[in-house]
């Protein structure tokens, strides 16, 4: 142990004594590693926020049925059980899925589209409330503004039909449970429970709606839905779901292509980054290795003296290796400093275009650790040749050089 600690101490003293040479290698390393960390930080930050946006916006996980299909309840329920499906509700016919809304405080009467919703709807997740039953409604921000209402207010909803030759209109008191912000949905619309949508459709079709006391003929047989709203569990499930449903003959639309573009970009930029990183680090390792080799020749006499006083072969190998590790450690530290400075400036520049907490250039703690491990590995490999050369110094050879 005395040998190791002495080798550590002496190589450190030598390193400090030659601070000009040591310093220029530290700076050379930081000049390679610093920009590399900034580059990776940019890639990680930009692609990271794009992926974040994709993940956090549930619309990217939506699988939209298109045109008019024929889906029955068992099929909908079967889909709801799938592990790659987060949420599914059936849709009624679009032509029958609207309603006139009026409030006491506004003189405007608006016609809104009704969108089926229910427990677990990812789009309304986080709003704190979901519509259930026939007397609750979630208004889009645009609709709420026109009606001049807020959550908790009660509004009047009405639907009309021609039945047995005469016009009929039914009114419902609807409680606004929450208002969905425009960022989520930017048309005049209302989210309602499937029950209400079905009642509206039944009424329009002239069918009897027993639960609301609306008269009409008995509805024939099983209900067939023309479409649905479906959200995949994760982004990665979207493409597969789309592929499978198209294969089954269903017409669906997703944002799978947008997702694929971001993922491709991530993969390609990662590849480009690694090519640059490997070239940069290899170049640095080569120049450090050559210098350490020259160092060993230059310090031949000193190393011979150390062998003369009894240092072992292994201790002598440690000298260039330890000094190389010092360079790697301090260079990495300096590079991290460069990264923090540059990323601070970059993030400041882009601050206006970013949401709170987002950054264009950022790294995770594990990225710093990976950078350190790679740097130390490159440094140790670079020092090996010098170490080998040092180990071959015969004490008697170098002693009388001068």
């Amino acid at each position, binding site marked *: 142990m*005395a*040998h190791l600690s*002495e080798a550590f101490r*002496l190589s450190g*003293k*030598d390193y*400090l*004594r*030659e601070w000009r040479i040591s310093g220029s290698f530290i700076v050379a390393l930081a000049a390679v590693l610093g920009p590399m960390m900034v580059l990776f930080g940019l890639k990680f930050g930009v692609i990271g926020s794009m992926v974040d946006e994709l993940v956090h916006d549930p619309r990217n996980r939506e699988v939209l049925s298109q045109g008019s299909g024929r889906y029955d309840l068992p099929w909908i329920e079967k889909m709801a059980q799938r592990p790659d499906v987060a949420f599914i509700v059936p849709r009624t016919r679009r032509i029958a899925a609207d309603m006139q809304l009026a409030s006491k405080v506004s003189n405007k009467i608006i016609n809104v589209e009704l969108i089926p919703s229910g427990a677990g709807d990812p789009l309304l997740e986080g709003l704190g409330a979901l519509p259930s039953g026939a007397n609750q409604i979630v208004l889009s921000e645009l609709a709420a503004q026109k009606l001049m209402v807020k959550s908790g207010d009660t509004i009047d909803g009405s639907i009309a039909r021609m039945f047995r030759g005469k016009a009929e209109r039914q009114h419902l008191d609807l409680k606004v449970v929450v208002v969905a912000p425009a960022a989520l949905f930017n048309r005049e619309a209302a989210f309602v429970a499937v029950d209400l949508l079905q009642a509206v459709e039944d009424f329009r079709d002239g069918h009897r709606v027993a639960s609301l006391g609306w008269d009409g003929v008995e509805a024939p047989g099983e209900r067939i839905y023309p479409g649905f709203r479906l959200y995949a569990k994760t982004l990665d499930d979207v493409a597969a779901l789309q592929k499978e449903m198209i294969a089954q003959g269903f017409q669906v639309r997703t944002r799978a292509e947008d997702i694929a573009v971001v993922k491709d970009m991530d993969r390609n930029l990662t590849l480009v980054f690694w090519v640059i990183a490997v070239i940069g680090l290899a170049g640095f390792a080569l120049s450090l290795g050559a210098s350490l080799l020259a160092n060993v020749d230059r310090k031949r*006499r*000193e190393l011979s*003296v*150390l*062998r*003369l*006083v*009894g*240092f*072992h*072969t*292994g201790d002598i190998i440690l000298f260039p290796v330890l000094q190389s590790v010092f360079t790697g450690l301090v260079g990495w530290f300096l590079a991290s400093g460069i990264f923090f400075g540059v990323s601070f400036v970059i993030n400041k520049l882009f601050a206006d275009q970013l949401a709170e907490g987002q950054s264009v250039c950022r790294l995770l703690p594990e990225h710093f650790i990976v950078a350190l491990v790679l740097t130390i590995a490159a440094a140790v490999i670079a020092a090996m040749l010098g170490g080998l050369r040092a180990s071959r110094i*015969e*004490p*008697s050879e170098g*002693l*009388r050089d*001068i």
Partner: protein
Amino acid sequence: MENSTEALVARPTDKVLIYHLRDVVRTREAEGTAFRLRVPSLQIAMGEKIALIGHSGCGKSTLLDMLAFILQPTESGAFRFRPERTDDPIDIAAYWDKSRQNRLGDLRKKYIGYVMQTGGLVPYLSVRDNMSLSRNLLQMPNNDMAVEELASHLGIRRHLDKFPSALSTGERQRVAIGRALAHRPSIVIADEPTASLDPIAAEKIMNLFIELVDELNITVIVASHAWRHIKKLGLRQLSHRTQRTSDGKLTETVVTG
């Protein structure tokens, strides 16, 4: 010249042979000429003070390097080292044969001090650290003032925290002597320790060196090309002669003692 086995028997039994060499040869060939150092027999007793006098290039350094285990003999009939009176002799030739360089390094670390012709100091260590080099490797205590006392004897105490580059040649040689003695080795080998100094400084430092070695009861082997003042110090001289073959291709030095 004496026969080694007879000599061994003839010596008093209380004498311990720190070195016992028989038929040790080191050959060096370069550009058609060869140089050979031959030691038919060499015995150095513990506590002896030995001088090796001769002009430069006669093979003094070669012999000293072999005695310090930093140069491998080309051939050796016997090469034994016995640094401790109570221990059995160590077979150095066997260590060389098995390439046990680290083991040889350990012996050097513990038992040998080496003073070179010029400095041989480590430039990035202070005088104190240079003098403590072997002591630290041997994990000897740093708080017993041994280095300070030695530095005082050598007249370099005020330089302890300086670096070698700040010292004169004479002061550096004093540091080198200090380093060779600081860990209380069994033997000190000095290769022309004063050759780079002016005659007055050289004599002063040599006197000081021998005085210290005497005081610490350390065996010493000094190589020098100046016999004049070595003689006054009462050192035993090893006899040697150098001859060249008629074709001039081989120079051979034979050392005995």
